[in-house]
């Protein structure tokens, strides 16, 4: 039998991602996209205002700078979320700790905003949902491969 055929006849060994892991990854991905979008919007609008092209131009320069910095921070957080989302979907061992840390920061920020009368409900909803999903036993197990043996399709099929 040719070598190529031999290889193709072997059962493919692929790690199965639990559905909750996919959902958690997707939620964090949505958070990442939202943060990046808000960040870009902030930077663009503040930039246009600084160039005198926008009604925001009425704001004093320190306030506009704050909007700009806020935009940059949002993009940064969005990138971290993106990294976590990819790590989660690809079962990177540190993504659970990183994800929980990032969600904690995001939830603290959203709670402080809420207490100061500027609630951001979408961030709150997504943050809480992401944490609940990350806390699910199967997600934790999937992201800590050293401690729990992974389930492989070949094994399932063999069974």
């Amino acid at each position: 039998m040719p070598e190529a055929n031999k290889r193709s006849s072997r059962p493919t060994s692929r790690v199965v991602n639990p559905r909750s892991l996919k959902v958690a990854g997707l939620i964090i991905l949505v958070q990442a996209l939202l943060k990046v979008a808000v960040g870009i919007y902030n930077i663009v609008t503040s930039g246009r205002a600084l160039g005198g092209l926008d009604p925001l131009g009425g704001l004093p320069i320190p306030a506009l700078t704050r909007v700009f910095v806020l935009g940059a921070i949002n993009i940064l957080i969005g990138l971290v979320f993106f990294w976590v989302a990819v790590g989660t979907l690809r079962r990177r061992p540190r993504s659970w700790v990183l994800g929980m840390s990032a969600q904690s920061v995001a939830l603290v920020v959203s709670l402080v905003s809420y207490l100061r009368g500027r609630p951001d409900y979408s961030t709150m909803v997504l943050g809480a949902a992401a944490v609940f999903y990350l806390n699910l036993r199967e997600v934790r197990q999937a992201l800590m491969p050293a401690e729990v043996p992974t389930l492989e399709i070949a094994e399932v099929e063999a069974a």
Partner: protein
Amino acid sequence: MNAAEKLALLHRYEPILRFTRGESFYPCAVETYVAECGLYVQVPRRPVERLVTEGKLTLAHLGEGRDRGPQAIYFLKFIDPLNLAEMARYRLQRGIEDLRERARRFSVGRARLARVGYSSRILDAIYSLTLLLRGRVPGDTAAAAALTYARMQRTQECYTYYGRVVQEAGWTILQYWFFYPYNNWRSGFHGVNDHEADWEMVNVYLAADRSGGLAPRWVSCASHDFSGDDLRRRWDDAELEKVDGHPLIYVGAGSHASYFMAGEYLTEIELPFMAPLVRVQELLQRFIAPPSPGPTESAEAEPSAVLNLLRIPFVEYARGDGAALGPGQEKAWQPVLIDPPPAWVERYRGLWGLFVHDLVAGEDAPSGPMYNRDGSVRRAWADPLGWAGLDKVLPPGRVAPALRDEIRASAEAYRRMARQIVTKRRALQRLGLRLSAIEPRSFLSKEREALRKEARVRSRELAQLQTGLTRQRDTGEALRALALRVRQGELGSPRAHLGRTHRPMPPLPRSVSLLADAWSSISISFMLLGLAVLILAHASFWALWLVALVVALGLVEAGLRRQFRGYIGTLAMGLAIVTTLILLGRFYAQVIAAVAIAAAVYLMWDNIRELAS
């Protein structure tokens, strides 16, 4: 068995006790202790009355069996606290001795507070404060006791145990009782309590071997007020160390509790008023589960492995690096037989040391080997088998005949059930016959209903009998399999009876331990200082700042203890729950509507799918 035979048997298996460096008190003879004591009685609402003055008390006085009513509490008083000059002299002497003999000095290991969270540290501070309100042994009594004990030993050095031999249900139980003049766990080793007098005990359980002689099978030892299966180890268990056929026991520093393994044990006490909160915490922890442990972690997790926020931790040092007493060691035992029990054991139900009116009773002296503090008989004395959970275990020589009886009884029960089933099935079949005969006759409808009802009842009974029969068969098979294993000489796992055993704390890297120790001793002060700053600075959102402070301190702690993953998981879950509650409070109408819409859509989809199929 006469006294000489009993003493010989006790001598054959007498345990070796290994102490921790820094221990001040060892098992001694009660005569010399009692000679230093006075006898007192406390009748409620009356002043304490001295019955026998110090220096004149003997064991005969204790055996007189006084009775001033059920409320009266008799107690001994061993020590008068030192005056200032004596105390200073003692401290100086001790300091010089420690400097001279560093190798014999006790050094604290990992601080107990480094093992637990902030809530336990705060509770610990509260517990320490309660000692000011509760009755307790005066602080310098331990020093005075140590001096008196040293004088007693200089006069006549002896290390005594009090032995008895109990024969019960095929077992021969050797009980070794040890009397210590003082328990200085709190003042000497940062433990829970101090009290005058301390009775501890080790049991060796013997049973007949094939040659008809007695062979050791189990060992159990007293550890605080615990009882049950976890206190005993089988003779062939690797955890039970032996030296020339003598079991090795490690004694807790100051507390004199006994352990089978050398090490430092984390003992947690739960304050009674915190019990409901502890239950709530346990429920919450089941929901907010920390990252799951690896599959290699055994079910025998030590209690300290569980996050106990509301219990106060105490470290018990049973290192075994100090003096050793017993056969082949630097000091040998002087056995005293208390079988049958002498009058001072049987008739004196009072306390063997100072009664300080402690509400928790931890600082009151214990009673003698036979009695509890309240005057009732100790279970360890009256029922040494049941006390160690051995009352359900047969001596090895009796297992095979008992199994034969059990198999025979099981087979008989099986046959009886099978016969019952045959009889009942026949009756039910005849009933069915009658039922089918009258079925078409409408004018016999009443009889038909009655027969149907009876058939239902009988059918249910038959089904129950069938289930019982299969269970009986399985039980019989299990018994036969056990009999086969017993015939082959298999004893089963020596640890099968163990539930949640107390194990020494696992070692930590020295660097981590040092940092965690240092942090644990200053963290509460940091928290209080932060609180003071917030109050003085009139910070807006001060509650939020306080939470932030606690969280930040927790982060440092978790990092030092390498528990960052668990901490961040719990923190994130806490924040998510708070956020969810806020969202539910704000959007409860929309949430209910969304749930209703989702349910409606699902039901519609499900019904339409059924229709289409």
